[in-house]
């Protein structure tokens, strides 16, 4: 099995609090892997250790090794031989729990990172923006108001904008941190459909708070228990129907 991220003995702590305790796991390429676990089990920290976002927080200390498979090469996430931080984060896109458009216009939310991080400006940038907005089904809704503030969009639209913003930077891996938890049911379903449609082109690591959502989307499941994780569970090994929920709940 090809893998997109490989973590060995990964431990992360903030100040005196240890969040991840020696995690060993290989996440498969071009599959949806759903991270499950109780609150505080380290799901978000695990995601953020892949794009080095944990380093943005005070008191961060990390041990162990992590490697990512990007541009056909397996490289360390940090240290010698790693990609520059801005390129790593461009190649490993992230969508957060709550929609977080920048306090700019709808268009600028995508055009600005495209120009600054990917060097795509002018027509090239606009084409990439249109493609990304079409990919998340938002182009027809916003094409005539790209200069309006992104905050004028509904929550679901904002989350699709954030997904489009990440996709515009042509990532290979997508980190989705409970992307539907702050949305209403219909908007959440829309995002789920999108994730489903992206599964064959991107390697997706997703934190989910919902077991039924995990079952609908996941090819693999990673169960985190108090900062530890060992191996993955393929969807084929899950019991069917309601039993699956009980099965996973027992593992948490």
């Amino acid at each position: 099995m090809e893998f997109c991220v490989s973590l060995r003995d990964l431990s992360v702590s903030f100040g005196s609090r240890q969040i991840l305790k020696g995690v060993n796991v290989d996440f498969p390429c071009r599959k949806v892997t759903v991270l499950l676990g109780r609150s505080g089990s380290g799901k978000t920290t695990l995601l953020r250790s892949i794009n080095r976002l944990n380093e943005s927080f005070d008191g961060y200390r990390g041990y162990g090794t992590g490697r990512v498979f990007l541009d056909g090469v397996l490289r360390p996430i940090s240290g010698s031989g790693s990609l520059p931080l801005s390129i790593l984060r461009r190649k490993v896109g992230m969508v957060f729990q709550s929609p977080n458009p920048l306090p700019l216009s709808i268009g600028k939310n995508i055009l600005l990172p495209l120009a600054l991080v990917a060097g795509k400006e002018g027509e090239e940038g606009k084409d990439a923006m249109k493609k990304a907005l079409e990919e998340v089904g938002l182009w027809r809704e916003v094409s005539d108001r790209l200069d309006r503030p992104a905050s004028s969009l509904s929550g679901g639209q904002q989350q699709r904008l954030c997904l489009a913003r990440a996709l515009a930077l042509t990532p290979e891996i997508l980190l989705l941190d409970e992307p539907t938890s702050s949305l209403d049911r219909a908007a959440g379903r829309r995002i789920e459909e999108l994730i489903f449609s992206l599964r064959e082109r991107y390697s997706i690591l997703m934190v989910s708070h919902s077991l039924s959502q995990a079952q609908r989307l996941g090819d693999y499941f990673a169960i985190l228990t108090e900062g530890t994780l060992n191996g993955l569970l393929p969807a084929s090994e899950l019991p069917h129907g309601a039993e699956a929920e009980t099965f996973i709940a027992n593992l948490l």
Partner: protein
Amino acid sequence: MFSSSSSPPWLRTVSLGVGAILASVFAFILFSALAALLRGVEWEFFGAVWSPREEKFGLLPMIYGSLILSFSALALGWVLSLGCCCTLRGLGPRWLAKILLTSLRFMTAIPTVVYGFAAVFLLVPVIRSAFGGSGFSWLAAAVMLALQGVPAMTLTMDGALQSIEEQTSLTAAALGLTPVQHLTWVVLPASKKWLLSSALLGYGRALGDTLLPIMLAGNAPQFAASPLESLRTLTAHIGLTLSTGAGGGERSSLLLAGGLLLVNSMIVSLTARALAGRGPAA
């Protein structure tokens, strides 16, 4: 009418009393200014000559002086404040930001007279030896007014920048933006209204300051054409004329000067409030 309010009656009485006192002060200044304007047509209050001996009480040089001094001090001070803010928000090294923040907080506690005093002995001689003249000039007053305004403007700007930075830093980092790109392309554009509102605050303060212009600007009631020339502001004019005893046309002209300053401050303050009320673009 206060049935929905839970505040005790004495508190409401005190607040109404204070409000009424403030309103009466404003009303007094505005009505006096209006009365002076109506009565003193022959004194040519908006004339270009101030010469009490010739019964000419023209305020135009002082209005001009106030405006050019506050705008020049603002232009200089605003740019300095923006620079300080960017240093505080990560463009400079951390140790420099710490020193700067401590200095700015310390500067807010320094009495204006100390700024004036220091400038008389440090800045004015430098201007005198470098450019000639007495050194007491538009330039000396503008530099010191700018410096005096920097702490308030910087701390106001920084409050807005910090709040937007906190809201957006993780998103920007996750997109691969560097902290400098984040500040330049996201935080500053999103803080436009606050940057403008801090400029209005700086302008209001520069316009209202009396001591620095009196001590440093030379106080000649003339239209200064160069930063090295002397000028007199409305505030300095009120201070100087009152201290030498004023009656008749002089007194009326001072009331009008006070009214003009009050109206200007009200416009600035209301505009700043309207801008701040709308807040940074969310």
